[in-house]
């Protein structure tokens, strides 16, 4: 009886919390502008799927945005995960005071907010401003801290016997890293990687300052430019079509990975 009550309450909560927002976006992205302006939850009286999505793909810069988002997300995630794991190995195993001091700075970089304006200045000085390379390097530098912090805790919790045994068997250090360390760190790197993908894919603030021109715009930037083009009264049908298309790639990743994401997170891979 209590269980029935609990799941009824949860369902009643999930309807406005999850279902209605999704439904609003989907159904209104199928309506013509005038009908979508009513922001109702009913089915479209006139369907305008092809027109709306056609406009978003064409004028909304969706395809350019998609390519640009992939072009920055993939390198950032790869660099943070691989360089973070390598650094975590060193921080977890070395007793050098210098490295421990560096590890402390990495920890600070998680907590403190990145200084965006001096970053623009710095990238300009390095002739990296406005383009995706500067953005990738900045995001990597600002996101490494979290992965290093989580992975170093993991490394420290493991006895080093496995690594020593592999080394005695004649494995070089890079071989030990690839064959012993990366598999050991896989759970934490996986969870960290997924959170990172979500963060980088959805990043708007850094992109707004660091990426110039629509040729470099990632999906959140192109959504914002598209929506701000008509700030007085949003074309809700088009905005929602853009929102849906921008979120779908992440939902696809999530559907494939959700079991491991949920299990990894609830088993405490993120516990500080």
């Amino acid at each position: 009886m209590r269980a029935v009550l609990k799941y009824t309450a949860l369902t009643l909560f999930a309807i406005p919390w999850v279902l209605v927002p999704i439904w609003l976006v989907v159904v209104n992205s199928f309506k013509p502008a005038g009908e979508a302006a009513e922001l109702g939850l009913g089915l479209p009286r006139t369907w305008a799927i092809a027109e709306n999505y056609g406009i978003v793909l064409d004028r909304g810069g969706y395809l350019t945005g998609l390519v640009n988002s992939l072009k920055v997300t993939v390198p950032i995630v790869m660099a943070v995960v691989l360089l973070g794991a390598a650094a975590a190995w060193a921080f977890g195993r070395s007793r050098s005071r210098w490295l421990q001091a560096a590890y402390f700075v990495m920890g600070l970089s998680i907590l403190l907010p990145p200084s965006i304006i001096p970053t623009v200045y710095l990238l300009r000085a390095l002739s990296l401003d406005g383009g995706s390379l500067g953005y990738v390097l900045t995001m990597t530098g600002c996101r490494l801290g979290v992965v290093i912090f989580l992975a170093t805790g993991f490394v420290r919790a493991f006895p080093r016997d496995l690594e020593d045994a592999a080394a005695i068997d004649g494995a070089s250090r890079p071989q030990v890293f690839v064959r012993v360390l990366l598999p050991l760190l896989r759970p934490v790197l996986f969870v960290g990687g997924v959170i990172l993908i979500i963060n980088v894919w959805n990043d708007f603030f850094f992109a707004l300052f660091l990426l110039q021109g629509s040729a470099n715009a990632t999906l959140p930037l192109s959504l914002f430019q598209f929506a701000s083009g008509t700030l007085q009264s949003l074309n809700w049908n088009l905005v929602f079509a853009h929102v849906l298309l921008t979120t779908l790639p992440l939902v696809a990743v999530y559907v494939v990975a959700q079991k491991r994401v949920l299990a990894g997170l609830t088993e405490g891979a993120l516990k500080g």
Partner: protein
Amino acid sequence: MVMRNRAAWLPWALPAIVLVTVFFVAPFLLNVRFAFSSWTSFRAEITWNGLENVRTLIDQDLLANAVTVTVLYAILCMAIQNTVSLSLALALQRTSGINTVFRSAFFLPTLVSPLAAGYIWRGLLAPDGAVNSFLGIEWAWLGEPSTALVTVAFIDAWKWSGLITLVYIAGLNGIPESLLESATVDGAGPWTRFRRVVFPLLAPALTFNVAVTLVGALSAYDVIAATTGGGPGDHTRALNVVMRQQWGQGFFGSASALGFTVTLLVIATAVPLVWWLRRREVTA
């Protein structure tokens, strides 16, 4: 035995150290200088001007309001987010088929970008939108000074609650079953068990979540940009919103000063909070 010499570890950490130093630490240090420098789009030179930026921002009535809005916003976000997430976590703690479905569903908003979350809720909460027609009222949630800030904070909380719920579930699952059983044997009801056993042992997860949500919300920008743009009036004009405006007008020094204010707020919040919450932690 093989890999114990010191210097050999450096190359493994070096790329990460260089990237963090150049793209995080260096801008951080530069910001301390720029916050107290005259730097605008009208003059190429950057010169030290002490507290001039701060004074200008105060004279324009921008700073005090932005600090108040930012702090209030952070507290509202933290309160809403942790209340929702902890409740969901308590309901969905046990790993079972149906709970996994709910966990998965409640995680979905986390996948939505804060910007898109802003647009979605701006649509739902429009004066003639679905929420109002369900409640039978007409209210501009985002347009009225009395509700704008709490509404924006709610949207931010909505976006992040799924993730925070999972961290709480991890914390709850770390509590030994035996402790709860012996509390039950001693006659403790559900509320007493929660207050005396679960809550104190949840401290590490609570520390993490409260700190993360507060610190994250102090840097708020995206949701505000998609919903109110800082309005009505200046009721949701958080520090980063003013920073972006100053930057757009070419006042780079003032913008840096605002960014530095966010940093100071983060330090002022995080240090005592982590210290205080850590002290309350009980080891199981």
